[in-house]
């Protein structure tokens, strides 16, 4: 394998596939290396596909991509032990093609994306783990794989090796990942007849529903739960900051959190009878703007989860991954065309394109969000309880007059957070979201 390529892409997730596809389509020689048995076999996501990022790469993807359901309804639930207060947004606008987003099953979707990468002309090698980058001084010149004679060379190496970002860390491009900058999520896929899902969620064939949850289900930790409808299965999961798991005084395991969520009286009937066929765990980089490392250097660029490109507030990741992958490939294409080498200077157009795209603009907008939620866990504990108590009180008809109930609700809020606390919380949220 002592060949030389224009580009080596490490990893075959959304960012790696976007990079390999874009570079190969432009006529560059591309080697893509994936450690799984097939592309997708190591990859975990909720999963929602946002159409726009993929449209920019494969405009007609809807013709043959394996898509589960397009989303027509988004529910947001704030839960306590027995109840939830929620908002639902459902619109027939989301039933007009081209659809905006879909549920997908990553093992199938990634396999499909990879078939497009191969069609575009890239060489894709699976069941091969990249051990480290090969350096010539301060220039990345290739990678070493766990195969006999596994040294391969390239002008540019695109690191799409996922959230653990092993290769860049070993090469010293960035430091250790902090537990406060990643969320640990676990999920299950539960199979049931298509008609059951459609009846339970009040949807027609191909229509889908998303439920995002927060509150008591995370046991005081900063995190969220989710439920997505696939064609004939439901994906259900919960994730919290890894630092919160580590410091949780109850020493709650992720799978215990998941089981409790499945048993919640608002969730249990939706998943009843489902046959569990897989249990997954995955880290999500949620450090945001300040946690994004240096994204390029001499002969290398970093994309997707490996570079921490996730907008945790909006639950967006795979679209940032695809966009960063595409932009990195475009930088490699431009550097090749310019013929002036592949040092950091020649790859700087990647950083510039990132800054000008929605990727860095959105991360910048929410730059203070991780800190605000880290230091104020009342948003995940006290408020969900107060809100549910308030709703229960106002809606229960029990002979107590509404004015008295109102007074009691205000007094509960004041007791729990004090007036200055309430005002401070509102200000913190406004600052973090604006």
């Amino acid at each position: 394998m002592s060949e030389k390529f224009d580009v080596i892409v490490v990893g075959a997730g959304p960012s790696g596939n976007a990079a390999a596809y874009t570079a190969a389509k432009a006529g560059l020689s591309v080697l893509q290396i994936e450690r799984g048995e097939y592309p997708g076999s190591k990859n975990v996501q909720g999963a929602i596909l946002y159409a726009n990022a993929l449209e920019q790469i494969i405009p007609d993807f809807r013709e043959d991509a394996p898509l589960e359901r397009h989303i027509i309804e988004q529910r947001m639930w704030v839960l306590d032990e027995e109840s939830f207060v929620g908002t639902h947004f459902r619109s027939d606008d989301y039933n007009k093609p081209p659809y905006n987003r879909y549920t997908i099953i990553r093992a199938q979707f990634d396999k499909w994306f990879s078939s497009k990468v191969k069609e575009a002309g890239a060489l894709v090698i699976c069941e091969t783990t990249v051990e480290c980058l090969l350096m010539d001084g301060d220039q990345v010149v290739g990678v070493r794989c766990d195969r006999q004679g596994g040294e391969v060379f390239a002008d540019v190496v695109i690191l799409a090796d996922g959230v653990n970002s092993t290769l860049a860390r070993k090469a010293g491009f960035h430091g250790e990942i902090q537990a406060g900058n990643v969320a640990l999520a676990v999920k299950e896929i539960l199979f049931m007849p298509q008609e059951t899902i459609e009846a339970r969620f009040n949807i027609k064939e191909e229509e889908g529903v998303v439920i995002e949850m927060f509150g008591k289900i995370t046991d005081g930790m900063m995190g969220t739960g989710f439920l997505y409808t696939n064609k004939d299965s439901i994906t259900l999961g919960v994730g919290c900051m890894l630092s919160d798991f580590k410091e949780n005084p109850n020493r709650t395991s992720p799978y215990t959190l998941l089981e409790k969520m499945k048993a919640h009286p608002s969730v249990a009937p939706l998943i009843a009878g489902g046959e569990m066929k897989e249990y997954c765990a995955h880290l999500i980089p949620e450090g945001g703007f300040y946690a994004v490392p240096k994204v390029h250097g001499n002969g290398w660029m970093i994309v997707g989860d490996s570079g921490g490109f996730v907008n945790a507030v909006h639950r967006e990741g795979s679209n940032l991954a695809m966009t960063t992958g595409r932009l990195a490939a475009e930088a490699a294409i431009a550097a090749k065309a310019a013929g002036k080498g592949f040092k950091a200077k020649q790859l700087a157009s990647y950083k510039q394109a990132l800054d000008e795209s929605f990727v860095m603009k959105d991360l910048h907008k929410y730059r203070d969000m991780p800190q605000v939620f880290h230091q104020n866990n009342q948003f995940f504990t006290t408020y969900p309880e107060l809100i549910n108590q308030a709703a229960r009180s106002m809606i229960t008809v029990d002979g107590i007059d509404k004015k008295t109930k109102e007074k009691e609700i205000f007094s509960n809020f004041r007791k729990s957070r004090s007036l200055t606390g309430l005002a401070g919380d509102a200000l913190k949220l406004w600052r973090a979201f604006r």
Partner: protein
Amino acid sequence: MSTVAVNVEEKLFQNRYKVDHGRPHIKIRQPDLCRNECKSQSCTYVCPASCYKAEGNGAVTLITDGCLECGSCRIICTELSNVEWEYPRGGHGILFKFG
């Protein structure tokens, strides 16, 4: 949070693995450190596949067969850096059917 008995082995049983026998991809560098220096032993409850077990004698043991390759154990072991963590050899480890 009230206690719920969860059998994580039952969950892992649904998964597909190709175990690299005799070549675990994660190792505890110095088992004595876990026993004597680590107070929290948080890996024993944070690991989503329950690969780390707190033994009655104070030791922590590791069996990587059910590993989901998330990377949490390495990141939370910051004080002692006692987890040696690599991805499994190509083609080995967890093989997600759905992901």
